[in-house]
């Protein structure tokens, strides 16, 4: 089972991701912002992380940077999930250490495709 950590302040989005991933061989854990994401990651680990960018407390950029600072998660793929198709945001996310991105709208199959692209 591939453990996917989803970090998004929108409950709707978290539920959507869970719906798309559940039953497809994924275990889904959820966090509501970057800080919470770090906590959940420390507690339960993750094989793949999907994170939103605009979040309270610690945003997606900060979250990714903090994850990468942790030696244990330097090689954990991080996908940025955001409604921004703004290329500047993508660049910033990559600079922070994001492995890839999911541009909305996405279909559940597309989501699986992208995860497959980065997850062993």
């Amino acid at each position, binding site marked *: 089972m591939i453990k996917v950590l989803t970090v998004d302040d929108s409950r709707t989005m978290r539920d959507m991701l869970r719906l798309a991933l559940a039953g497809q*061989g994924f275990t889904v854990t959820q966090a509501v912002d970057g800080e919470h994401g770090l906590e959940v990651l420390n507690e339960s680990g993750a094989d793949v992380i999907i994170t939103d960018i605009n979040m309270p407390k610690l945003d997606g950029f900060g979250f990714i940077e903090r994850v990468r600072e942790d030696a244990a998660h330097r090689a954990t793929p991080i996908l940025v999930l955001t409604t921004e198709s703004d290329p500047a945001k993508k660049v910033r996310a*990559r600079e922070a250490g994001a492995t890839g991105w999911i541009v*909305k709208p996405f*279909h559940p*199959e597309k989501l699986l495709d992208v995860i497959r692209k980065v997850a062993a």
Partner: protein
Amino acid sequence: MDELEEIKLTFFQECDELLADLEAGLLKIDAGDAEPELVNAVFRAVHSVKGGAGAFGLEALVRFAHVFETLLENVRSGKIGLRSDLVQVLLRAADVLADHVAAAKLGGEGDIATTAAMVKELETWISGGPILPQSVSEPELPPNDDGIVFTPVTLTIPEVDDSPKEQVWTITFQPMDELYVKANEVGLLLREIERLGEVEVELLDDALPPFDNLEPETAHFAWKVRLKTEATEERIREVFEFVEGDCSTTIVRAASPPMTAEPDAGPDIAAIIAAAQAGLAEPPSSVEAQSPEELSSALDLIPSLPAVSAEVVPRDNALSRQAPARAGGEKANPATIRVDPERIDKLIDLVGELVINQAMLAQRVAGHGFAASSDVGRGLDELEQLTRDIQDSVMAIRAQPVKSVFQRMPRLVREIAGQTGKQVRLVTDGETTEVDKTVIERISEPITHMLRNAIDHGLETPGERIAAGKASEGTVRLAALHRGGRIVIEVGDDGKGIDRPRVRQIAISRGLIAADAQLTDEEVDNLIFLPGFSTAKTVSDISGRGVGMDVVRKSVQGLGGRISISSRPGVGSTFTLSLPLTLAVLDGMVIDVAGQTLVVPLSAIVESLRPAANDVKRVGVEGSVLAVRDAYVPLVDIGRVLGFQAEATNPAEGVVLLVDSEDGGRAALVADSIHGQRQVVIKSLESNYKQVPGIAAATILGDGRVALILDVDALVAMRKREPVRAHEPLIEAAE
């Protein structure tokens, strides 16, 4: 319910929260809070509404949210300064957004004209910002470009093509260090390429330095792949989408020489991928001299190379084809669990039974002569404590902060302010105060009405305020707090206060009081609660169509609550509501009437007294009144009104409960005796038996007997309508 429908419900719930946050944030900004995080929070709220709406294809909502968001983005990035007139526009835009959400909830779309006007206004700000026009030149996202759409789609995959043209490509790629830093993996890239067709992979290890010079964090290898595929170049490039810039890649179509390998004996991709992941296909010559142990310990030092342990990636490891399994990860969302409200109601009911049972048990044990200090007595004490704790905890499940009611008020206040031409600032306090859900659902209306009243009647116009030496903007304060096991809600204004001479004059002209009545200020203030009393010259749109404070008071009393007013001329008025925390239990006075045990809601009782015989005066044939200090109060014989007895109890031999009745007057209920105050669990008579006039509900007492809870207002009204009832028992047997 379909899971997607459930998420939709969640979405709308979330929208309500986001809209509340949006408004709260804007109001704080309006109040001068310059915290940058506030603008971010406001932006996020609109952004999240848009994101979710896109997922459900709510296009009108998405379109509006998008424009709103664009303006907020400009504010956030500093392109547009946050001026107070802009904040007003944003507040109104928030209202329009709320309308859209409300409309979407019902399956419709927001009002077109209002939306168009608002969009125009927002766009003016977007393009009229002090410095821009970069934002204008940015291509606007198609409105439905956001969110996820969960409709079945046909994926266009290359194989679908009818006349596939197989071609051979040579792909060379050389990862830079950065590729590994971002947790991308060459092995996975190769796997993706393999999915496109037949491949031959060659590892280029020319750049691998001698072991002594090996930099563990540096990328050393390159790969050359020959790919025979029907896929387009674009599709191949997509494989490298995430590593663009972190990897020098060339993709060249080969002149079309056939694949060198025999078709049947394809390359062992798994082995190649494993080697690629390990970063070493074969030990390069310069490293050959090292022992395997040394090599492996050296590799352990390379943290940036993922999966150094050389896991073999199985060829059929297609994620989406794995056995279905429930996502067991919900544990990471510990904040809430969803429970059917009916289950909670059932639990509350059961705990009610437990409380009753415990009381019965205590009574029986006491009846058997066990001392309180005995083992049984002490055990029972503990049980009682435990039962009470359970009751409190269970009630807490259904407790909700009043925030859900309060957060609807700023908009109302803005609307009324707009209609009356008054400038109003709403200050709220104690939003986190919790109260039972059943109460929450019913306090919104009285609060709404009191707020309307405070602005419409309480506050002066800006001109009047300035003339009175006040700030042109009036303040209305809405606060909630816990006091004495009840929730207290205060609605105060800093307006002109109650115009007592005018109230008095109106009361006289309507025959509510005698022209020469001597009333204290407090009594005059309370006249506004009399039915039909309205100080507005015309029935205004705002304070309701003839709905006066009497209706407010009635609905508050219906909740077992009380309402009072304090007012100072020129300084303002404050209405105070005091409500029980729950409607499941009631503080009652247990009384005896004609051999029946009854419960009178404590909230209705003003005082209890034992009248002297000469205080009772007969009026007419059947009626009688009681002289209480300097006023006469009609006597209501409970036993007679309810048909328990034919003859009235002599008030002088019993006890009289002075109660506030619906018409603003008082009445004196006559009972045989009083047992004392007790908290009782309310049992609906309607659902267990039938509706009985004069009876609000029933309860079960500690000794197991059913006791009826009186509906005081109805009882007083019944006495007026039919002072003498036939002697027929309303309740056959109270067992």
